[in-house]
């Protein structure tokens, strides 16, 4: 009898273990589903405030609850004893003993069966192995779990939190910035945490950011990088392509829907206005905005961009551009000084370098006058023959003259020498490789005048297979920088 009872206990223990394993599998499945939902939701920017610890806690609860449910599941002891009987060739003795103990009667047969089984020594685990279906399910679950973990790690390592509610635009641009071997541009960029903080601050200021706003933010960063020379044209193109890939399709579909178009247009208009403000150095966007653009949003800009003045290349300009860096190095002592203080700052603001990055980010996002970043206002001032050098001057003081005039669709882009990289090779690449910008002249103070070829921009946009709304936004961007005076 003792032997039978010991076997029965072992069988119950084994069955509970198997049930717990099964419950654990279900818990793991639920846990995996929770993780996938979480990752999916994060990638769509929903659970902005849900911490990882909550996810870990949910997973643990799911696993433990599943295992507990499985363990407490009722055990069909007779069936398991029958399996043990069959596995060890016991002639159904254990099952019969169980039956006689339960039903009572036939005491002599029960005693005889006890005597027959008293020398048994067996391991019920052999009779009750983990079912093949269970093993397969665990294998599948393991593969899925590892894949999810790998994807999460890759995603986390390559894509830090981004300006627009976690969308990976900003991080993609951060990762695409110049390599660490070039320390000068890195000095101008803020650290990851600082930029995140700035981005979050910008996001908080503008409320819950939309994908279009994030796009505008990303393009603004591109603009900054382009102007400051941190990004080569190839990098700009590459990042534009990445931007197009990273825009969530669901968001695009939503934005492209009839109801979403208005929102997108508003966002595009807002982005355009922010670009205007950034370029005009804090000028009142309403006063700086031409009346013909305040109508149906960027569509007019798009139409204008479709028929830009032809800006063909100027061989002579290119020749001049070869010698330009050395000239630029001596062109403006004030600009040079500012450049040393802050590579990304071309203005001689009293706020200095310590406020430049932070202030620039806030200004860019909130539409406030930029104090530390090079702005289109500087460029406009320098492009104007009467304005002289814009370096160190208050940008807002010039916007009254330039901002009230309608923005022409121009393709000339004067760039102050201080904004250009000191590295002549970088400049050469900028001027000759890929980017549709031609050096067409030089101002008396040495500021080169570049011309953006909008047809080439258009051709590049076509090549990038960007979504239509994104393409319009990029087009608006180039129109905006092309419209600088």
């Amino acid at each position, binding site marked *: 009898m003792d032997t039978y009872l010991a076997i029965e206990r072992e069988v119950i223990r084994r069955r509970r273990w198997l049930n717990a394993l099964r419950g654990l599998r279900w818990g793991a499945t639920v846990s995996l589903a929770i993780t996938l939902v979480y990752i999916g939701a994060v990638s769509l920017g929903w659970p902005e405030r849900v911490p990882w610890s909550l996810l870990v806690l949910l997973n643990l609860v799911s696993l433990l609850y599943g295992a507990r449910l499985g363990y407490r599941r009722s055990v069909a002891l007779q069936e398991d004893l029958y*399996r043990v009987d069959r596995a060890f060739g016991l002639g*159904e003795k254990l099952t019969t003993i169980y039956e006689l103990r339960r039903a009572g009667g036939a005491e002599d*047969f029960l005693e005889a069966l006890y005597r027959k089984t008293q020398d048994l020594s067996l391991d019920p685990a052999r009779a009750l192995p983990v079912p093949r279906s269970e093993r397969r399910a665990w294998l599948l679950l393991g593969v899925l779990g590892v894949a999810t973990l790998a994807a999460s790690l890759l995603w986390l390592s390559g894509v830090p939190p981004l300006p627009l509610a976690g969308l990976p635009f900003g991080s993609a641009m951060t990762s695409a910035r110049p390599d660490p071997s070039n320390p000068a541009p890195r000095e101008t960029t803020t650290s990851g945490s600082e930029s995140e903080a700035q981005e979050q601050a910008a996001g908080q200021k503008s409320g819950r950011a939309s994908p279009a706003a994030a796009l505008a933010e990303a393009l603004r960063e591109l603009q900054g990088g382009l102007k400051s020379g941190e990004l080569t044209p190839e990098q700009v193109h590459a990042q534009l392509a990445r931007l197009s890939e990273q825009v969530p399709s669901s968001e695009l579909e939503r934005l492209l829907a009839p109801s979403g178009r208005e929102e997108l247009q508003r966002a595009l208009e807002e982005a355009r206005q922010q670009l205007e403000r950034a370029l005009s150095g804090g000028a009142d966007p309403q006063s700086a905005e031409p009346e013909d653009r305040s109508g149906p949003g960027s569509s007019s800009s798009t139409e204008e961009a479709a028929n830009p003045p032809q800006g063909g290349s100027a061989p002579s300009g290119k020749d001049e551009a070869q010698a330009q860096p050395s000239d630029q190095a001596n062109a403006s002592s004030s600009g040079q000084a500012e450049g040393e203080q802050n590579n990304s700052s071309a203005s001689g603001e009293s706020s200095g370098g310590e406020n430049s990055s932070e202030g620039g980010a806030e200004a860019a996002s909130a539409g406030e006058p930029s104090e530390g970043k090079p702005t289109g206002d500087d460029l406009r001032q320098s492009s104007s023959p009467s304005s002289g050098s814009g370096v160190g001057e208050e940008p807002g003081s010039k916007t009254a003259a330039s901002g009230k005039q309608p923005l022409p669709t121009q393709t000339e882009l004067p760039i102050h020498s201080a904004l250009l990289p000191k590295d002549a090779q970088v400049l050469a690449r900028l001027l000759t490789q890929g980017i549709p910008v031609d050096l067409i002249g030089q101002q008396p103070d040495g500021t080169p005048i570049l011309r953006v070829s909008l047809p080439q921009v258009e051709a590049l946009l076509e090549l990038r297979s960007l979504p239509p709304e994104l393409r319009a936004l990029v087009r608006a961007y180039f129109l905006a920088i092309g419209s600088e005076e």
Partner: protein
Amino acid sequence: MLLEERLARSQEAFQRLTREIQRVIVGHQETIRGVLICLLCGGHVLLEGVPGLGKTLLVRTLGHLLGLKFARIQFTPDLMPADILGTNIIMEDESGRRYFEFTQGPIFAHIILADEINRATPKTQSALLEAMQEKSVTVGGRTYSLEDPFMVLATQNPIEMEGTYPLPEAQVDRFFFKLLLNYPSADELDEILVRSALEGALPAARIFTREELLEARQLVSQIPIAEPLRHYIVRLVAATHPQAEGTPPLVRDYVEYGASPRAGIALLWGAKANAFLEGQLNVRAEDIHQVFLPALRHRLIRNFRGEAEGIAVEEILQQVLERTPEV
């Protein structure tokens, strides 16, 4: 006395019985075993085989060895029920007064050999129905009980169908087992020839008493069977029904009527008796497997398609056995 000792003694007696039968009957071990199982369960046996295979000899040997009252009824077309059951005849006492007295027929024996049962008319065949099922006969408004043990062993020839009356299904169902006798192998035939030259083919001694048989029956009835095995029997019987869910394809396609509940009873008791003969204390799945075919082969009725295509009942039952899960 311990249960094991009682069981061992009874089992030893049946082993001796088997050995003695095999001294007379060459081969046919499965048939002999089936007959003994039916004897232990109080069931009746339908033996089917071509002439000359030793059907009658087997039954005669069994009756002789058991020391029980043995009767042989040769079924012919002109056999009447009274020839089996007995009849009231007019008697006259010393005072000249006449009265009816019942004269028992051959049915009033322990072991009945109903030879070539399918040659008798249905009316005569049906005379056996009450005796086989109720173990009693009613003649002239009076019912007479048959003494226990009562066992009918009927034989029939499957090839000579002219002038025969196939047994009705109701009667066939009353047979516990249907056992088939096949042709002996060459070695067995040689042994038959050797023995036929000897005199006194039947063993002289009776080795089993009626009381021993009844005690063995009691032990068999006590052998326990576990619930999963009972459920297994239920699944096996249910799987022979073509309209049931999940039946094997052969059943679905070729069976008109499945096994009756009597089949389940036969399986249960047959398995118990088989376990007893194997020296086991309880029923095993193997015991059910061993008695499955003899218990069910005469209870399955094939449809027209099955008969036309010559699908053997054994083939259908084999598929049922293979496809029915034990647990």
